[in-house]
């Protein structure tokens, strides 16, 4: 299903406008980080730890320094006292502080941790020099299993964190004990999801420039949050924030991995200042596998207490997340553990819940935010258990979900995790998915069996996704960083064209196209007369940035507010120039005109007059055409969906193929339907990858075993079926009725595919608790390969 009509009802919002943003990209004229070249630019390579846990007794750079073409080798010792290391962000549930030096000083705590930065005339020479650096490691015992790492006798990754807890929280709401005591049925299940990473096709990178313009330091960085980068650069480099300019070039994927603050880019910026020359660092894929944040790697033990009708009375969960060696800077190690446990209820009516969640440090790459963070694993574990509850009560997966989803009539509904659900179509989405999939026939076919011997599995998953969070919630539970201050500036230019400026970088989701569409409708200005600026702290107003499925809500809301003010100013001048009351005027297709169209003036002419013949217009009517507005929706807007996955399992090889996939989504009012569709299908693809293919493997000494793209497998065009996408949208309460759509789909995909595989195995008397559902795990689940 592809959206058709270029314009729908002559409105820009709701039309699949072809994005101007895509033009340079399709023509090969993108400017990604590695495309940036400045005269005299040096290149950086990092020497990285070969050990998961070791003392650094000595780092001898003598030989490396002599290599022709080497400019400088920076060590952790040299940075001591000059820059501030990353101390884990304050979080109410911290188990202790983790301090991460930009370059390791006394200790390395994960394979791949940066030890030295080699600056050379070219990257190859820098890598040559790395090979000549001699490091005297004193290996220390490594911890790699959270369940062992939390034992009292386990080696500590950070002395300040007892039991290696970077985060630990217990929470309860409602009388959970009573619910379990009085329940008609209690079901419990273990769930495990492996470690993964965003695998952006473009890995990270940074160019630091000294006095490239009026700013002392210009930093080009492949990142989702330019203003946040600027803030922390200023803090850590001890520069005035106003001396720094941050520019985000075209970005080849982000997905949250490019939303953390990492040492390498900050080292790069430091070097540019120190050497007074442009310095570039491009993360190659080998580095990316160990240096950029990982995600998931969770064990969940979940219980449901239900009544005889299958209504969930309470849930209780124990969560362990292997958060790696450091509390990721900006978000803290709390992200995954707190979200997984805290958002467990999903779209279901759950009055009572309890959890104990732990972020346990190990000697692996730190875990950071990645698309939907804790929600996919929370949802998958719950969906699998709901299916089990259904089996116990002889209720079909659809039936038991129907009994538990929050219905529209109950909304606004405050769930056991204190989130209020409103304006979201959980049940209609499920009904739509069931109808469009031909669910009953699917089940019938499943009973009849496949002639080719494959095992058919059907999985249903419903999800809730809180998008467009405002200041009512912090960036993550327990963190003290609140987003919610994102501005959009609208500026009418001297020719009557409009510029929309916002520091909301896209990595393909066409945010500025969407903002232009909103501005076009609000102002009556033609889309082709509207341009955008983003990605540059010198040109766009303050914004927290692109993450957490927020830009559609925030950006649109701010655009609408700014547009209303700007419209007022334009019409005031128009009324003066046309000598009519302002209430008689409107703007259509970049022309200011009376409602009866008897008088009009083109915006171009109005603008030129206002700028160049300003004395002919009363000053009080001509305050300028630049308007900046913020929008804080305060509370988030729930998006939701129901996904149905159909899989075929080969009982001889264990291979799983997704043969059909139906998604029914509520993502609010659509701005650009084709863009939304791309986001949803892309999210589903990543969820299928999570369910079946993607896993970062470590051995017991903390050595990574999945080191290249031949080892870490992401879905190709053959692993993703044609996605049948349907909508049951209801507007949110936010300005414009918009919702975010970047992350919901991955939640539905992990859940539905996990349930489908389990369904296939359970029909044969087997089961599966660990994902990705690799062929080997499937065969073990079928009892074909006995678990060792």
């Amino acid at each position: 299903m592809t959206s058709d009509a270029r314009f729908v009802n002559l409105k820009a919002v709701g039309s699949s406008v072809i994005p101007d943003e895509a033009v340079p990209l399709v023509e090969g004229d993108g400017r990604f980080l590695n495309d940036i070249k400045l005269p005299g630019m040096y290149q950086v390579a990092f020497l990285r730890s070969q050990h998961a846990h070791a003392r650094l007794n000595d780092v001898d750079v003598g030989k490396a320094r002599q290599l022709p073409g080497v400019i400088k080798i920076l060590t952790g010792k040299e940075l001591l006292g000059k820059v501030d290391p990353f101390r884990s962000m304050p979080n109410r549930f911290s188990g202790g502080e983790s301090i991460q030096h930009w370059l390791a000083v006394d200790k390395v705590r994960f394979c791949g941790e940066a030890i030295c930065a080699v600056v050379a005339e070219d990257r190859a020479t820098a890598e040559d020099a790395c090979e000549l650096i001699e490091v005297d490691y004193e290996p220390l015992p490594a911890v790699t299993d959270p369940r062992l790492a939390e034992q009292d006798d386990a080696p500590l990754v950070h002395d300040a964190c007892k039991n290696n807890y970077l985060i630990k929280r217990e929470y309860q709401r409602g009388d959970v004990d009573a619910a379990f005591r009085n329940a008609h049925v209690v079901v419990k299940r273990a769930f495990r999801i492996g470690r993964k990473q965003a695998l952006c096709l473009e890995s990270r990178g940074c160019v630091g420039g000294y006095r490239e313009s009026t700013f002392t330091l210009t930093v080009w960085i492949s990142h989702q949050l330019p203003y946040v980068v600027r803030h922390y650069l200023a803090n850590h480099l001890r520069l005035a924030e106003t001396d720094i300019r941050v520019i985000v070039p075209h970005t080849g994927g982000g997905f949250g991995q490019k939303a953390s603050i990492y040492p390498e880019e900050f080292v790069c910026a430091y070097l540019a200042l120190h050497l007074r020359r442009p310095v570039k660092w491009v993360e190659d894929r080998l580095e990316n596998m160990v240096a950029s944040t990982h995600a998931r790697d969770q064990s969940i033990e979940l219980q449901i207490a239900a009544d005889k009708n299958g209504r969930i009375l309470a849930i209780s969960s124990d969560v362990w997340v292997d958060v790696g060696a450091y509390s990721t800077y900006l978000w803290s190690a709390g992200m995954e553990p707190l979200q997984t446990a805290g958002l467990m209820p999903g779209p279901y009516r759950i009055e009572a819940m309890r959890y104990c969640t732990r972020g346990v440090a190990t000697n692996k790459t730190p875990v950071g935010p990645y698309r939907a963070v804790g929600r996919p694993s929370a949802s998958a574990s719950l969906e699998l258990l709901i299916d089990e509850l259904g089996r116990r009560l002889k209720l079909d997966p659809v039936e038991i979900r129907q009994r538990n989803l929050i219905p529209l009539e109950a909304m606004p509904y405050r769930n056991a995790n204190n989130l209020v659900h409103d304006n979201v179509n959980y049940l209609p989405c499920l009904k739509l998915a069931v109808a469009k999939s031909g669910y009953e026939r699917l089940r019938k076919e499943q009973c009849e069996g496949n002639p080719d011997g494959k095992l058919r599995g059907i999985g249903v998953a419903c999800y809730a996704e809180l998008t467009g969070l405002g200041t009512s919630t912090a960036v993550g539970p327990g963190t003290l960083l609140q987003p919610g201050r994102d501005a959009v500036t609208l500026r009418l230019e001297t020719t009557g064209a409009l510029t929309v400026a916002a520091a909301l970088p896209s990595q393909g989701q066409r945010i500025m196209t969407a903002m232009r569409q909103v501005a076009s409708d609000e102002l009556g200005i033609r889309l082709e007369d509207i341009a955008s600026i983003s990605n540059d702290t010198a040109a766009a107003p303050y914004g927290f940035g692109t993450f957490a499925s927020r830009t559609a809500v925030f950006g649109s809301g701010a655009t609408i507010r700014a547009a209303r003010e700007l419209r007022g100013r334009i019409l005031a001048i128009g009324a003066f120039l046309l000598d009519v009351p302002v209430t008689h005027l409107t703007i259509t297709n970049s022309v200011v005109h009376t409602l009866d169209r008897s008088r009009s003036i083109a915006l171009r002419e109005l603008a030129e007059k206002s700028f160049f013949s300003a004395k002919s217009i009363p000053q009080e009517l001509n305050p300028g055409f630049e308007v900046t507005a913020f929008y804080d929706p305060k509370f988030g807007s729930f998006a939701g969906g129901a996904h149905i996955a159909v899989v075929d399992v080969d009982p001889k090889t264990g291979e799983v193929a997704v043969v059909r996939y139906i998604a029914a989504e509520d993502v609010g009012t659509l701005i650009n339907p084709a863009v939304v569709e791309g986001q949803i299908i892309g999210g589903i693809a990543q969820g299928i990858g999570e369910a079946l293919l993607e896993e970062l493997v470590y051995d017991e000494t903390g050595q990574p075993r999945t080191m290249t793209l031949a080892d870490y497998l992401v879905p190709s065009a053959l692993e993703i079926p044609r996605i049948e996408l349907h909508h049951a949208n209801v507007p949110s309460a936010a300005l414009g009725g918009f919702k975010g759509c970047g992350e919901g789909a991955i939640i539905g995909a992990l859940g539905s595919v996990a349930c489908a595989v389990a369904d296939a195995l359970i029909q044969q008397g087997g089961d599966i608790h660990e994902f990705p559902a690799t062929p080997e795990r499937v065969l073990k689940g079928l009892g074909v390969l006995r678990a060792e």
Partner: protein
Amino acid sequence: MKPAWFDYHVPRDLQEALHILDDAGQEGRVLAGGQSLIPMLNLRVLSPAVVVDINRIEGLNNLRAGKDCLTIGALIRHADLLRSPDVCAGWPLLAEATRQVAHMAIRNRGTVCGSVSHNDPAAEHPSVLVTLGGTVVIAGKGGCRELPAEEFFTGTLSNALAPGEMVVELRYPRPPARTGSAFVEFARRLGDFAIAGAAATLTLEKDTCDHVRLTILGMGQGPFRAHAAEERLCGRRLGPQQYKDHFAEAAAKVAADVDPTDDVHASGRYRRHLAGVLAQRALETAFVRAGGRLG
């Protein structure tokens, strides 16, 4: 991921190439397609001092489908095989296996001789060469020699080349009439390194198995020739009621005999299981293609 330095030579004739390789000894590597060598250089798992680019050498791009034998020169790319109707018709096992090699862009550059020389345990070509009873033609400063396929493959990523030698040609006998073949591979995604695979040829004389060859790949040490399984099948009557059981038995023997290693993609136990499954699939498919009668 930039390679370490090396000295690069691009000789115009074979003797010059062999001379340079001989001088370089263990430090020399042949660059043909580069699809195996260059990733290793980029990852710096290999840093040879000398790289000899053979792409300009005359006479190495011979591809000849003769009456009795197919010869493939050192510069023949995987894609060249697939574009040859004679190869596809006369050596269908080779064509079927070559289609599984990575993706088009790799097949356009990678060479068959290069894949054979590299002998990655997961690669398709070594096992096909063994199953088809092929010969490896080796050139060195001292002259040329030939080795039967099985003697060429000496272990994981190892071959019988002495330092300074290179493979210049592969020879594949033409399979006799009433031969069916099948190449079956299991990989996580199309084009990935195989976790396990089987290359089988089966020649029928009426219902009887006149000739069978079966090689398993992905077991960790290079192509595994399933001699015991072959012996079980050779001379057996494979009628419509019997063939399934015989193949199952042969497959079980394969699974018992292979000695696969664990790695990040699969455990040895899983590989062993797959070896049996794929051996059976390959034998059954080869049987059908040989004209075997089904029940």
